[in-house]
């Protein structure tokens, strides 16, 4: 395999970059300030088939590989992390269906998800079950008469949970606590109009402010068995396999944020004059920019390599996805912090986008597994019995 992007990948990336620069970048500051979900950006992404990237061609998608999806997330996140997350979440929450859904389920939902007519969210985390996924308390019990499932409980920190039409929910289906922890969960698709489903609140956040992070409640939500993804008791496994494939999407968001901050800092250092010359000519500033570039490029190449390995079906998918997310998340935080430093006081105020990028970067160290969980995954992969 040539160690370069294919012509298709480069062409799709460039098309998304132009769309991001010309149509999304001018909206980014307002999206952050108003903290409102950018429906116009969602329509833009849908209208230009960006949301169709992760779906198989037979269901109206573009059949893009993981690397291509990540190239798109990176390019959008470079100008607006909230907007990049629209694609990343659509992909994340569709993965359970892609990995474990039946052909009927894919045919039922993928065409509308690929066209962007429907949005989908991934509801795994609970107030008391964050890193410890298997501790989920949301329950689904079987109605013996109809075969339906009745879901009770609540989910917290659900990205785009309040704007999604479909919610992929993980709930405990084991009747007794004696069942192994990792066999307790099952996976369901809840439709937003189902009675008993509700949005309790939207969080006020530090960053990615236009992406609504919701607390969702399930009060006796009746879900037909046709909406169950995979086998009963397979939920934990589906969630883990999903995250193994979705974490590169967050790494891509992180690389995009870092690149966006570096672009602003480089341009500023070129234009800003102090002591009679552009500050870029001061070695301390030049060295900072060089380090930011080297770190961003290193994170990017690790991400691309991880995507390539995962697409090729590498046996250590979990490790690849964890290392790229770990490195990219930390890179985004460091590079955006340094970008604020290069801009000095101007970096700290909203006249320039780097303060927003610094706030946005933080989430990439937290969601889809904290950086500590990434290290746990990597360490387990290293020490696993061979």
């Amino acid at each position, binding site marked *: 395999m040539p160690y370069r992007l294919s012509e298709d990948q480069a062409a799709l990336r460039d*098309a998304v970059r132009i769309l991001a620069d*010309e149509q999304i970048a001018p909206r980014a500051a307002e999206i952050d300030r108003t903290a409102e979900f950018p429906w116009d950006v969602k329509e833009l992404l849908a209208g*230009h088939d960006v949301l169709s990237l992760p779906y198989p061609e037979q269901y109206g998608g*573009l059949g893009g590989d993981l690397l291509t999806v990540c190239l798109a997330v990176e390019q959008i996140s470079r100008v607006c992390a909230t907007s990049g997350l629209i694609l990343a979440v659509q992909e994340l929450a569709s993965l359970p269906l892609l990995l474990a859904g039946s052909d009927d389920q894919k045919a039922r939902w993928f065409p509308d998800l690929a066209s962007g007519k429907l949005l989908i969210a991934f509801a795994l985390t609970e107030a008391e079950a964050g890193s410890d996924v298997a501790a989920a308390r949301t329950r689904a019990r079987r109605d013996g008469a109809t075969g339906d499932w009745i879901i009770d409980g609540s989910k917290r920190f659900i990205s785009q949970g309040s704007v999604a039409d479909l919610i992929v929910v993980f709930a405990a289906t084991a009747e007794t606590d004696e069942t192994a922890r990792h066999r307790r969960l099952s996976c369901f698709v809840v439709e937003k109009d189902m009675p008993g489903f509700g949005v309790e609140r939207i969080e006020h956040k530090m960053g990615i402010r236009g992406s609504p992070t919701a607390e969702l409640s399930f009060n006796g939500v009746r879900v037909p068995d046709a909406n169950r993804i995979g086998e009963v008791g397979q939920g934990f496994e589906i969630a883990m396999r999903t995250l193994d494939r979705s974490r590169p999407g967050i790494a891509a968001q992180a690389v995009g944020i870092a690149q966006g901050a570096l672009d602003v800092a480089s341009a500023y250092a070129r234009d800003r004059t102090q002591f009679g010359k552009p500050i870029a000519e001061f070695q301390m500033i030049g060295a900072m920019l060089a380090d930011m570039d080297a770190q961003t490029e290193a994170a990017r190449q690790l991400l691309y390599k991880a995507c390539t390995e995962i697409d090729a079906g590498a046996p250590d998918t979990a490790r690849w996805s964890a290392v790229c997310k770990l490195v990219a998340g930390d890179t985004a935080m460091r590079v955006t912090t340094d970008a604020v430093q290069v801009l000095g006081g101007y970096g700290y105020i909203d006249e320039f986008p780097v303060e927003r990028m610094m706030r946005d970067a933080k989430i990439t160290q937290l969601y889809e597994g904290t950086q500590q969980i990434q290290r746990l995954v990597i360490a387990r992969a290293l020490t696993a019995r061979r």
Partner: protein
Amino acid sequence: MRIVVLVKPVPDTASGGERLRPDDWRLDRAATTATVNANDEYALEAALKLTEAHGGEVILLTMAGTGATDTMRKALAMGAASGVLVTDDALGGSDIVSTTRVLAGALGAMEYDLAFAGADTSDGGGGVVPAGVAALLGLPYLSYAAKIEPDPAARTVRVNRINPAGYEVLEAPMPALVVATQALGEPRYPSLKGIMAARSKGLETKALADVAVVGGDAAVGGAASTTAVLSAEAPPPRGAPRVIREPADEAARQVVAFLAERRII
């Protein structure tokens, strides 16, 4: 309805590398990435809208170096059905007259109801190639179109032609050549599906020998140029910008004083 759109690859000014070669003062196309001439994109957008409304297809016609296929793929990604590229080493350095005769020869061999072109190109900027092509082929020439209304049944086309006072309405039989303006509406961004579809669309490459150049084969290309660039100079560098960071009232006063000093207002 078949609409041929003349598209030219031009240096992408956003890439910042455009320069003339110091030996012959021709554009150094290797130093820049190429993009579709912006005015041609308006023509293409208008053509796509019309074929979407009336049926039919849009075909691209380009005369340029072999690298033009990349630029033409971008135009195909917007929705054109196929393209014809006339490319030949012998055509390097063609002046407006040569270009016009070759394009007229290539267009004359195609089937079409309408031919569209942009008002001018951002590199050469001559702005007379479309008129020349129309003249050589004896086509009605409808320039500066702000609105294009074909009537495929009656085989006529009606155009609102911009003039200093507003516009005049012209009508001509098809086939005709129409010069598009930005008043026709913003060109679309290619969709990702459009980009993927463009990969398998037909791009026909023609050498000079494949084209029945209007006016004979002998006098085209750089050797036959009727004009020559003797020298060229880069524009003088701009001075540093003056940034005013004062409260609004004071800033406005200083801006007005600055402009008045230079007799701009």
